[in-house]
């Protein structure tokens, strides 16, 4: 390993093994990291299905597509439905949604379930746009195909 300069004190009688072990541990740890050993630990949001399944109380982020035709404005925000293809949930949002909020848009709603898990009470909506880019006239296909999971 390059990190042992020549001028380091010579390891005591046959003590080199500790450096070899340390180097192997480092390489192993980095390899484990690069091979994705920690994949899936850190989750910024839950899909609709996961959120329905877990039924957690407390704040969470819920991701899905806005169901076309489900958006209706209320006095202090909007209500709409989100789906991940399997489950569909009603969301009651207070406050102005962001500019790109629209039918079919991939959204992340932040908030918590109301009593009885009937609807999701959201107070912050983020747009979870994908990594696909195209000019307006080339494609009018569903912009929300991207759902990292």
């Amino acid at each position, binding site marked *: *390993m390059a990190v042992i300069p020549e001028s380091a004190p010579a*390891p005591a009688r046959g003590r080199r093994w500790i450096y070899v072990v340390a180097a192997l541990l480092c390489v192993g740890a980095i390899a484990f*990291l690069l091979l994705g050993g920690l994949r899936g630990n850190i989750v910024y949001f839950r899909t609709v299905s996961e959120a329905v399944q877990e039924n957690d109380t407390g704040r969470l982020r819920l991701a899905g597509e806005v169901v076309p035709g489900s958006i209706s404005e209320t006095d202090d925000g909007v209500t709409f439905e989100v789906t991940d293809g399997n489950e569909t949930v009603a969301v009651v949002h207070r406050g102005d949604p962001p500019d790109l909020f629209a039918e079919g848009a991939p959204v992340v709603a932040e908030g918590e379930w109301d009593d009885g898990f009937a609807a999701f009470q959201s107070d912050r909506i983020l747009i979870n746009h994908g990594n696909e880019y195209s000019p307006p006239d080339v494609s009018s296909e569903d912009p929300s195909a991207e759902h990292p999971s």
Partner: protein
Amino acid sequence: MSLAREVWLVAGKDLRVEARSRVTLNQVLPFGAVVLLLFAFALDPDRGLLSEVAPGLFWVAVLLAAVLAVSRSFAVEAEHGAIDGLRLSGLDGASVFLGKTLAIAVQLLLLELVLGIGVVVFYDTAVRSVAVLVLAGVAATVGIAATGTLFGVLAAGLRTRETLVPLLLLPIVAPVMLGATRAFEAGLDGVPSEAWPWVQLLALFAVLYLGVGVLAFGSLLEDA
């Protein structure tokens, strides 16, 4: 001398110095307690917020205290040219690193024990699975101690080491902060299965930096 004996020699020396000077007991520990107290002032204790965020607050307090413990560990060496003695002792760089790491880890574990009791009592936190807390706590502490020792010697002998150590150390231990907090949340809630991946992350971090420390410490000590 075997490696274990050398490690024990260095760790024993540091712990004896601590036992006599009582800096950790008289200054670092009260500092951690004051940090916990300040969190209680800053966050309204009536609304159950404190018990909810207790794991995060606990680890912030531990990290801040760890910065002090690391500075202390190398301030001891700076006095009366003790570090020259360490260099000339013929001990392996790896032994010195592991010994100092062990001494810091032991002190931090004691500190965590006391602060943990403080959190349970004052933040009204329920503890459900102690085993998870102990496992995550030990893994996180070894990681913090190893990085702390590594950056401690990196900044040793520099005029600005008091400010440099936190700047170098705190970003590096961000994953520990994240993992330990999540693992503790799971441990307090009594769902060990959720804690396991985080304990894994903590162990990985500890192994990585123990390895880096063993490799690099010798040459850094030589220059310190």
